[in-house]
C-alpha cells in the first residue's frame, strides 16, 4: 500500500516536472532567436503587444506559433508512436519507419502540383489520406497474409514504401520546380508555421490526443497478449481500429504542418516506458509530454546550430533517434532469448 502511494506521488511529480520543463523550454525558445530579444521584451510582447515594433512582430508571428506548433507536433507524433507500438506489439512502430511520413508527403506534393492554390484545409486532408495510404501499403505488403507481421518485415516494407513515395515526390518536386520548399519540408521543419495553420490543425490534434489518451486502459490489457485480452473481454478489433485512426489523424496533422519527422514516435514511448512503467495510461500521458519537450528543444537547437540558417528539426531528431533504434535491437534480442 505504502509503495503504491509513493508510486502515484512519483508519477504526479514526474508529470509536474515535465509540465514545468515544457513551459520553461517554450519560454526559452521564444526568447532566443536570430533577431535577439530578452525576457523583458517577450513579456511586453505578450502582455502589451505593439504592432509597430518589429521585435514584437517577430515574437508573436514567427516564434510563438512555431513553439506552439512544436508542442503540438511533438505530442502528436509521440502519442501516435506509442499507440502504434501498443496496438501492433511492434517495438519499432514509428511514423517515419512505417512509411506514413512518406505517403503523406507524396500526397501533399501531389496536391501542391495539382491544385497549386489549395487551402491549408485541403493540405491537411490530403496529408491524412497519404498517411493512411502509406501505412496501408506497409502493412498490406509487409504482413503478407500473416495476422501479426514480424516487426523486421514491417521495417523492411516500410523502408521500401518510403523509398517509393519519396522518389515519387522528389520527382514531382523537381518536375514542377518546388524542390527547395519541398525538400526542406520533407526533412521535417517547423519553419514558417502560421497561426492560421495552428488554428485549423489544433482542434483535430487535441481531439485525437484526448481520444488517444482514453485508449490507455485498453492498451494495457492488450499488452498482456492477444489471448488474455480476448479472455478479459476486450473488443480487440475495435481497439485496433480506433487506435489506427487516432494515430493516423495525429500523424497526418503533424505532417501537414511540420513535414516528415522520423524517429520521434519511436524513441519517446520507449523513454516513457522506462519512466512510467508498464501501465499504458501512464505511458501515453508521459509520451505526450516528453514528445512536446523533445520537439521544442530540438527545434530550438535546429535554429541555433547553424544560425541564421535553419537546420531541419527532423534531421536532428533522426540523428538522435538512430543510435537509439540500433540499441533497441540489442534489447529485443535479450527479451527474445529470455523467453
Amino acid at each position, binding site marked *: 500500500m505504502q509503495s503504491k502511494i509513493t508510486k502515484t506521488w512519483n508519477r504526479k511529480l514526474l508529470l509536474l516536472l515535465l509540465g514545468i520543463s515544457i513551459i520553461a523550454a517554450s519560454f526559452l525558445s521564444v526568447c532566443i532567436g536570430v533577431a535577439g530579444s530578452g525576457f523583458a521584451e517577450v513579456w511586453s510582447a505578450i502582455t502589451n503587444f505593439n504592432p509597430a515594433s518589429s521585435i514584437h512582430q517577430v515574437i508573436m508571428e514567427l516564434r510563438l506559433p512555431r513553439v506552439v506548433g512544436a508542442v503540438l507536433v511533438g505530442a502528436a507524433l509521440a502519442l501516435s508512436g506509442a499507440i502504434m507500438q501498443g496496438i501492433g506489439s511492434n517495438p519499432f512502430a514509428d511514423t517515419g519507419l512505417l512509411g506514413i511520413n512518406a505517403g503523406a508527403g507524396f500526397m501533399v506534393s501531389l496536391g501542391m502540383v495539382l491544385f497549386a492554390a489549395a487551402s491549408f484545409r485541403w493540405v491537411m486532408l490530403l496529408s491524412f489520406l497519404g498517411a493512411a495510404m502509406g501505412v496501408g501499403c506497409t502493412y498490406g505488403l509487409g504482413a503478407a497474409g500473416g495476422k501479426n507481421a514480424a516487426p523486421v518485415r514491417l521495417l523492411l516494407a516500410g523502408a521500401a514504401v518510403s523509398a517509393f513515395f519519396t522518389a515519387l515526390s522528389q*520527382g514531382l518536386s523537381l518536375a514542377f520546380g518546388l524542390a527547395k520548399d519541398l525538400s526542406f519540408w520533407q526533412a521535417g521543419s517547423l519553419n514558417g508555421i502560421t497561426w492560421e495553420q495552428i488554428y485549423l490543425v489544433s482542434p483535430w490534434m487535441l481531439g485525437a490526443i484526448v481520444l488517444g489518451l482514453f485508449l490507455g486502459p485498453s492498451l494495457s490489457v492488450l499488452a498482456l497478449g492477444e489471448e488474455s485480452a480476448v479472455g478479459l473481454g476486450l473488443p480487440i478489433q475495435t481497439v485496433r481500429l480506433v487506435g489506427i485512426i487516432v494515430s493516423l489523424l495525429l500523424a497526418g496533422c503533424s505532417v501537414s504542418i511540420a513535414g516528415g519527422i522520423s524517429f520521434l514516435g519511436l524513441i519517446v514511448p520507449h523513454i516513457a516506458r522506462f519512466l512510467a512503467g508498464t501501465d499504458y495510461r501512464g505511458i501515453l500521458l508521459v509520451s505526450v509530454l516528453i514528445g512536446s519537450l523533445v520537439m521544442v528543444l530540438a527545434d530550438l537547437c535546429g535554429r541555433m546550430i547553424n544560425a541564421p540558417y535553419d537546420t531541419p528539426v527532423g534531421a536532428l531528431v533522426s*540523428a538522435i*533517434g*538512430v543510435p537509439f533504434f540500433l540499441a533497441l535491437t540489442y534489447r529485443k534480442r535479450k527479451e527474445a532469448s529470455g523467453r
Partner: protein
Amino acid sequence: MKKNSKAIIALCILLVTVFVSMVLSLNAGYSNLPFTKIIQSLFGAVDQETNLIIHKLRLPRILAALLCGGGLGLSGCVLQSVTRNPLADPGILGINAGAGIAVLVFMVFFPQLHIASKTFMPIFAFIGGMLVVFFLYTFAFRNGRLSNTYFLLGGIGAAAGIQSAMLIISTGVENSNFQMLSRWLAGSVWGTNWNHVLTILPYLLILIPITVSRAKNLDVLILGEEPAAGLGLKVEYERRLLLFLAVGLAAACIAVCGGLSFVGLVSPHIAKRIFGVKHRFLLTGSVLFGMLLCVLSDAVGRIIIQPLELPVGIIVSIISAPYFLYLLRKQTV
C-alpha cells in the same frame, strides 16, 4: 555443357540489348536527332552541333550511367551472396549513404583538395562506405556469427541516420550548392563529363575482373558458414575480401552518380532468373542488367518531362521499390 552455351547466348543477347539501349538513349532528349546522324557521329564527324550533343553531352552521361549501373549491379550481387540475404543492396545497407556523406564532407570541408577531385572523391567515398560496412559487421555479429537480419536492420538505421546528418551539414551550404547537392544525393548523371567517366573507369576495370574471378568462392560461400568452411574455404577472409570489393565498386560509382538505390538489389534478381544461382554467369549477368536498368532509366528520365529531366535515381527507385516489396512478400525473413 548445354546449359553453359545457353547462358553464353543469353549473355550475348543481353550485351546486344545494352548496346541497342545505349543507341536509343543517345537519341532521347530535348533535341531529336535522326538515327543515321547518330551512328555517323559515333564513327566520324558530321556537323558541329550533332557532335557537340553526342560527344560532349549525351555520350559521357550515358557511359557514366552504364558504368555506375554495372558497378552497382555487381556490388549488389556480391552483397546478396555474402550476407546471404536476397534483400541486400548498397543503398539499403547504407553503404551509399556512407559514401555519400564522405563525399559531402569532401565537398564542404576540403575545398583545397577540389583541384584533384578526380583522385580524392572515390577515395573519400570508399572510406565512408568501408566505415559503414565495418560498423554493420560489428553490429550484426551476434552470438558468434553474422546475423543477416541484423545486417539489414543496421543498414536501414545507418542509412537513416547518415541521411539526416547529411541534411544537417547541407543546410549550412549556400543555396546554389544545395541544389547541386540535393540533385547529387537523389542519384543523377546530369552534367557528367568525360572526366567523371575517366574517374570511375580505372576502378571498375580493376575491381570487376577481380570480383568476377571470385565466382567459385561465392558459390561455396552461399552454402553457409559451416559447409563452406568444411569445403576448405577461409570463410572470414573471403567474406571480408568480397565485402571490400563490393564497397569499392559501390563507392566508385557513388562518387560519380550519387545515391543510386535499388540498382544493386534488382539486377541480381533478374539475372538469377535467367542465369540461375551459379556465380560464373550470374555476376556478369548482374553487371549487364545493372547497365541496362541505369541506361534505360536515364533515358526515361530525360524524356518524361521535357524540357526538364528527372534524376536517374528517382526513376530507378520508382521502378524498383515495388519489386523489392514483391520480393519481401515472397521471402520469409
